[in-house]
């Protein structure tokens, strides 16, 4: 499912003294099957943007094309349910949406709302638990008896169970421990590879964006200011610093080396592995001299 935004604007509480323009001049194309990271400061409009992906918010100007759906500003769209099945959104702190008595029931809630039978949903709970890395024992426990990280996983499993084509994630790893983060990010990357899901990830971690995304969107004060592949985005370190954003540690390290030795690496080092490779070539060159 391709996603196309054309000249989208969103104002909250339009025509009141509280009116607030949260998005403007948004033009985006997200190809089916790609992995896009959205980066920006708190308040730059990332969450507002995401909520346009399944019609929870509708633009106050412009159009949003979501597969076969076209949402035009000013026209109230109904019958969005089929769209919401195709676009799963994991909100910030999704554990706040849990409500059932057991983990099993909570995970089955989404798929059953979209028409899956209870038997089928229950039969597949094991599969979804395994997907998010939870043991089978939690199935009949109350979600509220779990740890924070486990609750987060249950909530994410509840969205994955809807088997969406597009998975939208709003800071899914905020507040998790480093290992939990890595596991979760690897899982999303697998979903993209194996199930051909389109993934849109909002994150504050430049490392995550650099490592996993095919494409990065940078938002600043309600609009998109940069768009490109991680290599393109992180080649311009000063630009990022100018926008007040963090730069991945690896890129900073690369820059320090480059300045110290007066050399230039051909590619930005986005991961530890990239750094390793670059240093290796550097050392072999030094040895030859």
């Amino acid at each position, binding site marked *: 499912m391709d996603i196309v935004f054309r000249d989208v604007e969103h104002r909250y509480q339009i025509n009141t003294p509280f009116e607030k323009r949260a998005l403007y001049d948004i033009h985006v194309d997200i190809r089916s099957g790609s992995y896009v990271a959205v980066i920006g400061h708190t308040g730059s409009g990332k969450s507002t943007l995401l909520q346009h992906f*399944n019609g*929870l918010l509708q633009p106050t100007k412009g159009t949003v094309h979501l597969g076969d759906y076209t949402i035009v500003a000013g026209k109230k769209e109904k019958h969005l349910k089929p769209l*919401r099945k195709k676009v799963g959104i994991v909100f910030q702190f999704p554990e*706040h949406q849990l409500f059932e008595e057991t983990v099993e029931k909570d995970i089955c*809630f*989404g798929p059953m*709302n979209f028409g899956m039978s209870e038997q089928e949903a229950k039969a597949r709970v094991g599969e979804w638990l395994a997907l998010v890395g939870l043991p089978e024992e939690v199935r009949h426990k109350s979600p509220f008896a779990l740890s924070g990280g486990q609750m987060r996983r249950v909530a994410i499993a509840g969205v994955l169970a*809807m088997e969406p084509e597009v998975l939208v994630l709003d800071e899914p790893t905020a507040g998790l421990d480093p290992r939990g983060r890595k596991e979760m990010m690897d899982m999303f990357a697998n979903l993209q590879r194996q199930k051909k899901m389109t993934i849109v990830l909002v994150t504050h971690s430049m490392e995550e964006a650099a490592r996993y995304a095919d494409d990065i969107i940078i938002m600043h004060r309600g609009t998109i200011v940069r768009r490109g592949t991680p290599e393109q985005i992180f080649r311009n370190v000063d630009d990022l610093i100018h926008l007040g954003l963090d730069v991945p540690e690896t890129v900073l390290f690369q820059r320090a080396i480059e300045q110290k030795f007066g050399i230039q690496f051909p590619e930005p080092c986005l991961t530890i592995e990239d750094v390793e490779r670059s240093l290796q070539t550097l050392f072999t060159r030094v040895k030859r001299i």
Partner: protein
Amino acid sequence: MNGMIIGKYVPGDSFIHRLDPRTKLLLMFIYVFIVFLANNGWTYGILTLFTCLLLFLSRIPFSFMIRGLKPVLWVIVFTFFLHVLLTKEGHIVFQWLGIEVYDKAIQQGAFISLRFLLLIVVTTLLTLTTTPIEVTDGMESLLSPLKKWNVPVHELALMMSISLRFIPTLMEETEKIMKAQTARGVDFSSGPLQERMKAMTALLVPLFISAFKRAEELAVAMEVRGYRGSQNRTKWRELTWGRIDTAFMLFIGLLAIALWLLRS
């Protein structure tokens, strides 16, 4: 959710915004009584004029007020029709399908709806121009004589300010949870009763859990900072009663006298 304006503060620097909160509370209190003095065209006219003046002085956009009143509008319309249909005084204006409508009934219906509308406008105006903190400070100050009879005025005021403070938070929370559940295929606005009940559980359970959690966190935060009621507490924000407050109260007194004299 966004239509609700009662309880929302609109920042501003108008004459009404600058009045002492005690003045505004007293105004509201007195207004509730003087509204009942009005009983004819003249008195209702004066009262309406006064209310419009308040609205004008507050610089709250008229359209904003109207939109905020929409949720209560049907109550007002209902009141009007109830009076029109049930009051049987004066002359019959018209008859239709055995329903007789009297002229006094229309007049009374109109007056009572207007009274209701004016009351709501004034109360809304108070909350739109006064921060919740000011309201509670004002309340505490006005009620402080009751401390002599061991009424826990400070604690009551604190309870009130906490509730007022958390209304927007709860609304926000409600909206967030509704969005999250909508994304999971819940339909809050239509569907059979059983599904609606399920939808309400999916909203209310998370909402209650977060409210309890918040309450507990707040209690702990207050305790670690050594909060223990009103004993020996001083205030950071002191209320100051200015000359315009006295003038305004005198003006309301005059208004009450005028209404008293003009009522029939």
